[in-house]
């Protein structure tokens, strides 16, 4: 009886896990399946394609717009992520460690930005960017991305900073470190899991954005992949570009998967254990 109780519990959890995983994964697999189907079987409703083809993938790379859009997406997302994480790290550190006048107001304002409906900013941003010449440029997207990613970055990071024992910093100071050295060689390495988590979240936010990208760009100069996909056309006016869209969507998830896998190894829980007696 006592032996079966935990076993039952285990089975119960496994079933729940399975349901959640299937729920999340089936649409993804469906898209993958669509991307490998030939044009005439695409709407046959089979989960496993009856005839496989790479042509959807081959096709999208023949669209110039898509390759340039992929380049734009990668460039813009990486630059935005790096800048947002660097600024966010410093801001979060200040918020977690220092007591300065206006700290509460600062935190409040950044929260406000996060809550602000982005759609309401689209037309003013459009006008502003047109006026200052940022429309349809990389900086024209990077700037709003940083703005909206920063509150997220600051929030996640300051939670991580608060976990780092303050004594470590004092110890670094006593060991002869300048405040900057202490920050760089002690605090940042310890906050690394937080930094990487934040980087992933910010990257995904920038990578997936459609609203700003579609409103603030117009040509291949800065159009991102999400926008390019929306502008795919079929072989004829009446053919739906379902296969190409599916292939492009699969391609778009690959960088995120790589990004997550790459950084996940660094997100080691309990990195700070052993710093101070627990």
């Amino acid at each position: 009886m006592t032996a079966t109780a935990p076993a039952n519990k285990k089975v119960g959890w496994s079933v729940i896990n399975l349901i959640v995983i299937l729920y999340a994964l089936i649409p993804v697999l469906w898209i993958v399946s669509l991307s490998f189907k030939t044009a005439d079987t695409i709407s046959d409703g089979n989960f496993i394609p009856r005839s496989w083809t790479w042509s959807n993938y081959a096709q999208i790379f023949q669209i110039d717009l898509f390759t340039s859009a992929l380049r734009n997406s990668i460039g813009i997302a990486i630059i935005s992520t790096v800048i947002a994480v660097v600024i966010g790290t410093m801001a979060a550190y200040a918020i977690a460690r220092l007591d300065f006048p206006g700290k509460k107001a600062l935190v409040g304002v950044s929260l406000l930005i996060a809550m602000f409906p982005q759609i309401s900013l689209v037309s003013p941003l459009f006008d502003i960017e047109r006026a200052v010449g940022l429309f349809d440029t990389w900086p024209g997207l990077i700037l709003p991305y940083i703005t909206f990613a920063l509150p997220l970055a600051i929030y996640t990071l300051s939670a991580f900073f608060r976990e780092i024992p303050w004594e470590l910093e004092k110890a670094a100071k006593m060991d002869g470190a300048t405040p900057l050295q202490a920050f760089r060689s002690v605090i940042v390495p310890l906050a690394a899991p937080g930094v990487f988590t934040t980087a992933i979240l910010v990257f995904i936010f920038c990578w997936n954005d459609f609203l700003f990208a579609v409103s603030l760009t117009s040509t291949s100069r800065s159009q991102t992949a999400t926008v390019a996909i929306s502008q795919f056309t079929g072989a004829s006016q009446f053919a739906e570009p379902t296969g190409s869209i599916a292939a492009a969507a699969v391609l778009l998830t690959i960088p995120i998967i790589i990004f997550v896998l790459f950084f996940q190894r660094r997100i080691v829980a309990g990195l700070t254990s052993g710093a101070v007696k627990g």
Partner: protein
Amino acid sequence: MADIVLDHVYKRYPDGTLGADDVNIEIADGEFIILVGPSGCGKSTTLNMIAGLEDISDGELRIGGTRVNEKAPKDRDIAMVFQSYALYPHMTVRENMGFPLKLAKWSKADIDKKVTEAAEILDLTQHLDRKPANMSGGQRQRVAMGRAIVRSPKAFLMDEPLSNLDAKLRVQMRTMVSKLQQRLETTTVYVTHDQTEAMTLGDRIVVMKSGVVQQIGSPQHLYDQPANLFVAGFIGSPSMNFVPGTLENGGLRTSLGNLRMPDHIRRVLEAADAPREIIVGIRPEHFEDAGVVEDHLRDTGSVFSAEVDVLESMGSDKFAYFKIEGERAMSDDLAQLEADAGTADVPDGGGQLVTRLSAASTAREGQSSEVWVDTDKMQIFDPHSGANLTSRDPATANA
């Protein structure tokens, strides 16, 4: 190496708390000095001001003769060991210990040599490539020490470095710290709330209470000549017994009965213009079973009889606890000591008398026993100021 001087140093925290109140300490080059006192008395505050981790509100701090108030910790050339060890969890033991040298831009080879040397002293050689997370408390503690000694700083500061260790390890590490300090001959300021640690380690002890230095002196001096009730009650284990007394017609009446008043005490009390109501302090070892006291000594003390409450035989001697009737000695200092020890509301009407009797004593639990007290050794305190009226130490009788 250098001397450290705290010259009328104050620390006022932003919320108004006075963490250090006119602290004056002169620490000689190579000296091992202990800051001791109950929790919250300002030990860490004082240490952090020496370290440069806390600003000094007022007064001057000199290290090696130069004022360092405005210098950042890294420019003071002082190493510190924290209660929590504060090891860098992402670095190996080797990297932890080499960190100060790396910051000082030593060459790799020199760092390696120095770290290996320190690891040998601290018996850490086989752990050099481990991370702190999977080391025991004692090992982490030694790594923290190692990080402090590698760069041969002007002084070591240690804030309760042993208080996270279990009792047995603490005793071992105490010896290690003491040997290490003797070997390196580096000025050391060591903070602890444990009077045993203070007594066994230090060349000199600074007793603090509420940010104020109560007395500075060698362990023996503080034990024999406490400046006030606070020091008297804090130093020594088991602690000094305090009984209220009344000075009358040249005699001394207490709840232990009338005690003989030695001439030297009478003279000092007269000179000090002692109040009528006083507190008598007697250390446990200044009692003896009246049956085993040699005859010629009997007259230098007084004998009273009381019922033995609890008797603990330690083999070499016996601790006898007596219940004494009547009032308990009352003073601010004593109240604070009791609050610190957590015995403030132990329910015993009068008070308890702790005595250390020789092993030959015939005292029995629950039976009345004749006890002799060496009145030559008693100390008389003013209940209001707490000052020791019998202290032969004018320099410290100012608290």
